Every structure is written in structure tokens, then in C-alpha cells.
């Protein structure tokens, strides 16, 4: 018997047990699809977090004053002298409330030159950046400017009532930022940006609760980190984007490993299922195999006949699973985000 005849006989046998064949193909397909969808998911989540982190730039180190410690201009000058530090950006960050917006909003006082270091590229829907003068100007994040339906809530030129602690002030909106999506450390969409000098004046502050350092190169992040730790000890909390990315990557890779383990198990289950079905097929066809042998088919031929069927099921299942897996990879994030939380 030649290969084409064997193949067509295999197909006839598979067609005879249509439902069973379809179910076995499905089992293999589900196994393959799970592997693809889950590993794509793991890959996607980790790369999206890394992408968010890299919006800040991998060369960024953030310093937070602990238990009320404020950085002074002396600190800024001193830090600028540190080996590997390219620039020091002074920040005052507070939680405030804005009338007409439910959630707490982050107020960020910064020099306009620091803005690109904070959010990456500075993109405005309308208006302009504020001027570095102690005047009540404000640039607002996208979530404040538009409500959930996308209707405008605030526009540039309009006043904004901000409640800071027990007091309220009115600021003039000069610009509206584009949507930045999720971002680490600061959330531009839920923030308002004010000239640093105005915030200092208003709070009567002589220092800054946050500093954002940019290093000259990514390689120097660790040494700058070390220098700052040596200089300030426990007075200051230090976070570097690089360190954060590393942590995220290592968590993500552990999650991937887990997901791939789960998917692998389902793949093995599919394999065992196929094996089981092939065993049953052979056992229930003993009489048929007897006839085939009496017609002169060799043991090798009979073996090939059933291996071909297993192979056909495998190929078909993998192909179906591939399509299902790719589809699922695109669908899963939608499903997950609609079930868990809605970003923005």
C-alpha cells in the first residue's frame, strides 16, 4: 500500500468517527490556544509595564523626603555635583481636590523645563505651557478636562477651583494635556501642573518634597543610587526606573513561567486525550485490523495507518489552536480589562 492510499484510508476512518475526531482536534486546539494566549498575555503585560516605565526614561532616579524632610536649593546644588548626574528637577507634589472631580488629584509644582522629564514628550490638546512666574496658572491632565463620556469639563481660559487642605484657591487654566494612559510614579492624566515658584509661594515652602534626577547614562543609575544613599541615608527614599523595570521583569517572568506551566499542563492533557482516543480506535477496530492483515497489510502498515490519524489530528488541532490562540491573545486583554477595572 502506498502513502497516498494510506492517507486516504486514514481520512476515511477519521471521517467515519466525525464527532470524535472533531472533539479530539478541539482538545488539541484548546491546548495549543491556551499556550499561545497565555504566553502572549504574560509577554504583553510585562512589556506594557516596561513601556509605561520607560515613559519616564530608564535613566531617572526619584528621591522622596521622608518624615517631612524637604530638599533645599543647597541639596540641589550638591546633587548636581554628584558623578553621573545630568540634571536635578525640583518638585512639590501634594494631593488636592478639584471641584467637579470625584477622586483626589495630584498637584505637581515643577519648573516648565522639568515637564519633559516628568511626562516624556509634552503634548497639549489646547493652550500652552505655563510661565515660570509665581502666578496662579495651571496645566490640567486629560481626565480632568474631559468627563467619562468624553464631554469637555474644563477648557483653557476657564478658572479651576482647587481645594488644598482647608483652603481653596482659583487658578487659571492655561493648557490641557493629551491623554498619557497609565504611567509609573506620576499619573499625568490625573494631575494638575503648576509653576514651582507659585506653589512655593502659596505653601510658603523653602524646599521640595521630591527630586527627579536624570543620570548621564543608564549605566550610571546604580552608582548615582549608591552615592545618594551614602549621602542621605534613611532621610530619603530612592527609586530608580531601572530598578523598577528589573523588579517588574522578574515578577513578569515568574508569572509567565506559571502561565506557561498551566498552559503546558493543558497541552499534556490534550496529548493524553489524543493518545487515549487513538488507543480506543485501535482496540475497537481489532476485527477490521484482522481483515486488513488478511488482505496482506503488514504490521508496519497498520501502525502507519493509526499514526497517520494521530498526526492528522495533531496537525489540524495545532492549526486550529494557532488561529484560536492568536484571536484569544487579542480578545483576552479586552475581557480582562472589562472584568477587573477600567483604566481612565
Amino acid at each position, binding site marked *: 500500500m502506498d502513502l497516498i492510499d494510506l492517507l486516504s*484510508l486514514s481520512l476515511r476512518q477519521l471521517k467515519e468517527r466525525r464527532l470524535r475526531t472533531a472533539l479530539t482536534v478541539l482538545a488539541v486546539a484548546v491546548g495549543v490556544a491556551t499556550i499561545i494566549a497565555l504566553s502572549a498575555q504574560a509577554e504583553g503585560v510585562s512589556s506594557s509595564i516596561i513601556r509605561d516605565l520607560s515613559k519616564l526614561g530608564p535613566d531617572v532616579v526619584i528621591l522622596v523626603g521622608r518624615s517631612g524632610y524637604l530638599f533645599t536649593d543647597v541639596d540641589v546644588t550638591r546633587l548636581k555635583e554628584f558623578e553621573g548626574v545630568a540634571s536635578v528637577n525640583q518638585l512639590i507634589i501634594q494631593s488636592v481636590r478639584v471641584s467637579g472631580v470625584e477622586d483626589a488629584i495630584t498637584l505637581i509644582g515643577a519648573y516648565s523645563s522639568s515637564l519633559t522629564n516628568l511626562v516624556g514628550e509634552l503634548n497639549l490638546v489646547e493652550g500652552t505651557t505655563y510661565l515660570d512666574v509665581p502666578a496662579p496658572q495651571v496645566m490640567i491632565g486629560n481626565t480632568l478636562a474631559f468627563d467619562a463620556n468624553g464631554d469637555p469639563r474644563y477648557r483653557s481660559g476657564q478658572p479651576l477651583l482647587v481645594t488644598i487642605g482647608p483652603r481653596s484657591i482659583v487658578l487659571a487654566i492655561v493648557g490641557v494635556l493629551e491623554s498619557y494612559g497609565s504611567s509609573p510614579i506620576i499619573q499625568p492624566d490625573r494631575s494638575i501642573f503648576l509653576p514651582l515658584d507659585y506653589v512655593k509661594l502659596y505653601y510658603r515652602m523653602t524646599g521640595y518634597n521630591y527630586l527627579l534626577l536624570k543620570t548621564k547614562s543608564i549605566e550610571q543609575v546604580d552608582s548615582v543610587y549608591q552615592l545618594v544613599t551614602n549621602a542621605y541615608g534613611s532621610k530619603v527614599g530612592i527609586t530608580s526606573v531601572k530598578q523598577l523595570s528589573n523588579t517588574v521583569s522578574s515578577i513578569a517572568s515568574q508569572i509567565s513561567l506559571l502561565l506557561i506551566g498551566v498552559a503546558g499542563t493543558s497541552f499534556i492533557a490534550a496529548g493524553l486525550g489524543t493518545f487515549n482516543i487513538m488507543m480506543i480506535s485501535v482496540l475497537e477496530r481489532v476485527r477490521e485490523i484482522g481483515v*486488513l492483515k488478511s*488482505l496482506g*497489510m503488514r504490521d508496519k502498515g497498520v501502525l502507519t495507518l493509526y499514526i497517520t490519524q494521530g498526526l492528522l489530528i495533531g496537525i489540524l488541532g495545532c492549526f486550529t489552536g494557532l488561529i484560536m490562540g492568536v484571536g484569544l491573545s487579542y480578545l483576552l486583554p479586552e475581557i480582562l480589562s472589562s472584568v477587573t477595572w477600567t483604566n481612565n
Partner: protein
Amino acid sequence: MDYLIHTENLSKFYDVGSVKYNALQGVDISVGYNELAAIVGPSGSGKSTLLHLIGGLDRPSSGIVRVEGNNLSELSEQDLADYRSKKVGFVFQFFNLIPYLSAQENLELSMSIARINKKERKTRALELLKVFGLESLAKKKPTELSGGEQQRTAIARALVNSPSLILADEPTGNLDTASSIVVMDAFRELIEKRKVSVIMVTHNHELMKYCDRIIKLRDGKLESMEIKK
């Protein structure tokens, strides 16, 4: 005298648990060319076992089966498969036909195993189905055929590769007398026209008068061999 089939001290044991069961014990028989031979005997006397050994479906525990003087035990697995494919045509009592293939495809399957090309398969299959009056049923599946039609299809299939030996295990077992006589006439005609030998197992005494040789088995041993020519 030259024999097509000749067995010498043929025995077959089956291991049933720790006990050895003698299905066949020291059987010496011969079947000539162009003969219709019957194997008879009570149930369990070893008739099917003998047929399977002659057809190379099973190997003997001891003793020899000679076909045209060649010892089957000396053939490799492959040569034995070729022997079954080209030299022998089997007809069983039950489950002869592959259920999901049509009558014609069942014949063609046998030829595809013998590596006969596709065009030849079709013409030969239709030709043989016609000989057995089955040409209008060629596209039917076995379940759509009557018992007699199935049996005739099986005999037609046994002939497709022009074997020199037909082995039939109770081919008329589930047929009425009229259909049985049709099958016997078909065998006789084959022997005359195609120069084949037929060995069949039967319980039917009526049919023995068609046979040239009666081989009687009892408890796995040869009781008698009677030649009627």
C-alpha cells in the same frame, strides 16, 4: 503427486493462563491443485485454526505448512504479508468487509494493498462485481447489503488479486440453501476457469457433495481425509 498445500505434523498450542491448550495436534493433510476441499468437524475441533495457519495469518507452534513446496515458517513477516495479499484470498464467516467503504472500495482496498495502480483497480473491481451480479450494488456500504450480497462481495474481493488459493471459513454459514448453492457454484466455476483451489470450513453436509476432498477434524486431530474424485 504434486500438492498445492501440504502440512506435516502441524500443531498449534494456545497459552491459556498457565495451561497449554492444544488447538491442533500433529495434523498431516494435503490439498491438490484445482481442488475444492472441505474441512469439517465439531465446534472447537480446530478448523479455523488450521485455515489460519494455511493462510499465514498465524504461525504454527510446531510442524510445517508447505505451499507449492515452500515452508511458510521460513518466510519473513513481509513475505508472509505478500503471500496473504497475492496468493491467498480469505472469506470469513462474519465481518469480512470494511464497514465504511462501499462494496467497490472494499475490492479496491485489497488491490491497493497489493500495490495495483488506480485505473486497473477500478476496472478489475467492476468486472468482478459483475461476475457475481453485484454491479448495481457497487456503491453500497456493507450495512446496506443483504447477508448473501455481503458474502458474494467478500468472495469477489477474495479473487481480485487472482490468488491461487481461496480460504473460506463457513462462507455459507448464514445463508439459506439457495444462496449457499450459488456460492458453491461460484467456487466450482472458479476452480474450472481460474485454476484456483478452494479450502472451506463447513458444517453443512449438503455442500460436501460439491467437494473433492473432505478433511475431518476432531479435538485438534485429523480424524480422516477422504478423496472423492
